[in-house]
């Protein structure tokens, strides 16, 4: 029994925190909203080897596990750093599993080239469909369709709000073939029929794009549909980790202020209303952390539980961040709702993250579906 981080994992965490501390990420988050340039930390990520975190060592990667990637994302989330890993990492995981394209993989592991994952939500207990995020509205849309001929595929369809798609060199797309089977297709971002429309919403640290495929030609990867599903859930886990990191920092800042700020002759942190709310942030944070560990462990050691584990981690971390970001504003009183303060950027992060990659609603539904499906079996 050992359900804590290893020494190597702690070292990875510390190194990540150290590397990020040399960048003014929060100021960048504010400036970017005010029309400034997004602070792209890809070069820094390359220096510390993050692009190849999940790529096997034979292809020049670090050959680490899902939990290691989550730990890095948590550190990015703490300081709202804009590092396009949420799209890149799941894409490299699919490619690595496919076992082909060694040269491309090396370039991706090195960070010389960048990938994004235009994923689809796998079928659940109630539906056999692979669905993609729509541009707008409550109804999910079918994943792109592909005509497959041997290794070649012609893909048509759209995936909206793909993390890190703008500027990616290649896209790994989850498609459905004529037989209704899910396939992974590698598409060059510059290929004919591919358009990536960059979109910025609310949290300008977030690089998003609508990926539109109009008869775009790509290569079918030898990755099973379970790999596509795992990549979707890896995205959920990474988003969970990012959110958890943001919660940690939000709580630290809130606690610090609650000790220093006085009202009616007492530090506000001595009042139960404030104290109990901050303990609630802590409770949610630690629950989210336990589930992030679960997701990391399950991806490696219990793949059948990974959909449940990653979805649960996302739900717990997302709800924790929702609560923590509002509490961060609230504990600071009016000043927490001003442009100059850091709190609103954690709030923006929470608001947007909640609606990405299927949204919190789909993740919650998936937790239920996994357990109800098992119970019915």
């Amino acid at each position, binding site marked *: 029994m050992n359900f804590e981080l290893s020494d190597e994992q702690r070292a990875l965490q510390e190194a990540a925190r150290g590397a990020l501390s040399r960048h003014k990420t929060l100021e960048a988050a504010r400036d970017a909203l005010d029309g400034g340039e997004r602070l792209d930390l890809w070069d820094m990520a390359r220096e510390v080897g993050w692009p190849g975190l999940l790529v096997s060592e034979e292809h020049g990667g670090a050959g680490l596990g899902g939990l290691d990637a989550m730990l890095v994302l948590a550190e990015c989330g703490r300081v709202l750093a804009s590092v396009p890993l949420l799209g890149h990492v799941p894409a490299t995981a699919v490619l690595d599993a496919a076992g082909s394209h060694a040269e491309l993989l090396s370039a991706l592991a090195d960070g010389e080239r960048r990938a994004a994952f235009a994923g689809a939500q796998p079928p659940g207990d109630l539906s056999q469909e692979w669905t993609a995020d729509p541009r707008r509205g409550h109804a999910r849309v079918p994943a792109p369709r592909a005509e497959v001929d041997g290794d070649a595929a012609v893909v048509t369809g759209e995936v909206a709000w793909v993390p890190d798609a703008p500027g990616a060199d290649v896209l790994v797309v989850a498609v459905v073939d004529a037989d209704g089977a899910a396939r992974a297709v590698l598409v060059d971002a510059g290929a004919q029929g591919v358009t990536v429309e960059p979109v910025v919403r609310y949290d300008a640290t977030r690089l998003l794009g609508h990926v539109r495929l109009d008869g775009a030609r790509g290569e079918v990867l030898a990755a099973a549909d379970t790999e596509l599903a795992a990549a979707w859930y890896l995205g959920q886990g990474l988003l969970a980790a990012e959110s958890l990191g943001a919660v940690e920092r939000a709580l630290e800042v809130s606690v610090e202020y609650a000790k220093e700020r006085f009202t009616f002759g007492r530090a506000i942190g001595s009042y139960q209303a404030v104290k109990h709310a901050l303990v609630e942030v802590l409770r949610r944070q630690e629950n989210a952390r336990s589930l992030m560990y679960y997701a990391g462990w399950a991806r490696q050691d219990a793949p059948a539980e990974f959909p449940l584990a990653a979805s649960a981690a996302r739900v717990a971390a997302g709800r924790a961040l929702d609560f923590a970001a509002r509490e961060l504003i609230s504990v600071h009183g009016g000043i927490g709702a*001003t442009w100059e303060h850091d709190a609103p950027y954690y709030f923006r992060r929470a608001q947007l993250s909640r609606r990405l990659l299927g949204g919190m609603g789909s993740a919650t539904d998936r937790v239920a579906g996994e357990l109800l499906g098992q119970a019915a079996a």
Partner: protein
Amino acid sequence: MDLNDTPQQAEYRAKVRSWLEEHKHEAPVLQGEGAIEDEHEAVEAHRAWQRKLAEAGLTGVTWPTEYGGQGLGPLEQVIVNQEISRAGVPGILDAIGVGMLGPTIIAHGTEEQKQRYLAAMLHGDEVWCQLFSEPAAGSDLAGIQSRAKPQDDGSWVLNGQKVWTTNAQFASFGLLLARTDPDVPKHKGLTMFIVPMDAEGVTVRGLRQITGDAEFNEVFFDDVALDPDLVVGPVNGGWGTALTTLMFERLTIGGGGEGMGYRADRFARALASDPAAVRDPEVRKRFGELATDLLALRFTGYRILTALQRGQIPGPEAGMGKVTVVNAAVAAGDLIADVIGPDAFSLDDEWNYLISFLPGLKSAGGTEEILRNTVGERVLGLPPEPRLDKGIPFSELRDKEREAAGASA
């Protein structure tokens, strides 16, 4: 139960409605399509509109006639508000001045002050702002640190900072609470002043909110000289004067309710346009619950109006309406953005604005925690928290706080 006007009220409403009908084409467009873009122009157009309303007797409805008001009751004020809203025209520019600060001057000012300031306020010629809150005195308003020192010639010199000041950027005057004696307990050494906003040493700085708009200001005072005749109410009796202002603030808020536009039908329209959302029991459950709260708010509003009509002043429990509306609106914003997805955060989307605006609104005008304390103690009769600042001179309080912060850090 009867939601209809009395015959007198109906007559008054008809009069108001017909005036608005006749003059609404003269009203400026301040929001939405065709709105005046330049802020200065918008303020001037709004000022002109307030003047017209004033001349028609539609501002200061509850003010005494001797100061230019109509000498009517709060229900008539509500009727005017309702008709203005119905006509789709803006209200007055200086709602804070006319609603809260003017009445404070009427209650506590000298006759000279009343003659000098009230008429110009009512007509919008001189807009006012409220200079109470400070960075370190929000919930605990009596903890104010802005300092006005008496001079030998009877004048005062003011130094300090205020925050959350609406309209400061174009106000002519501010009603300001300052500490005039730090060597007595904190409620006892405060004095209320009128501050000319164009006085030397006054600096106004916009304070941007999450929305990106500067909905409030910070105001800095650097050796601002204040004449003796700018004191409102007794020297060192400012806390009592401020309580009058706060009472009028509650009255203003209590009468409203759905005035902020957080109506169930507005949110219903947003959801009804998405068939998948309409069919989703989870969406319906969340909407049903928040809509119930918003409906409750509307009918609680009618209960408060009934009480006002009977001459009762709403108690602190009326403030709970804010808790209800803010939380229901937050739930609505959450739900609608869940339904729409990230696109709800498009820059020109009304939900983007709503979601960004609410966190600031939550603490504006007192936090939910302070309100719950007040209602618990004054309405339910629960015992107060132990107060560690009672009877201690203000000047010593800060030292104690620093000491305590050091000990716990």
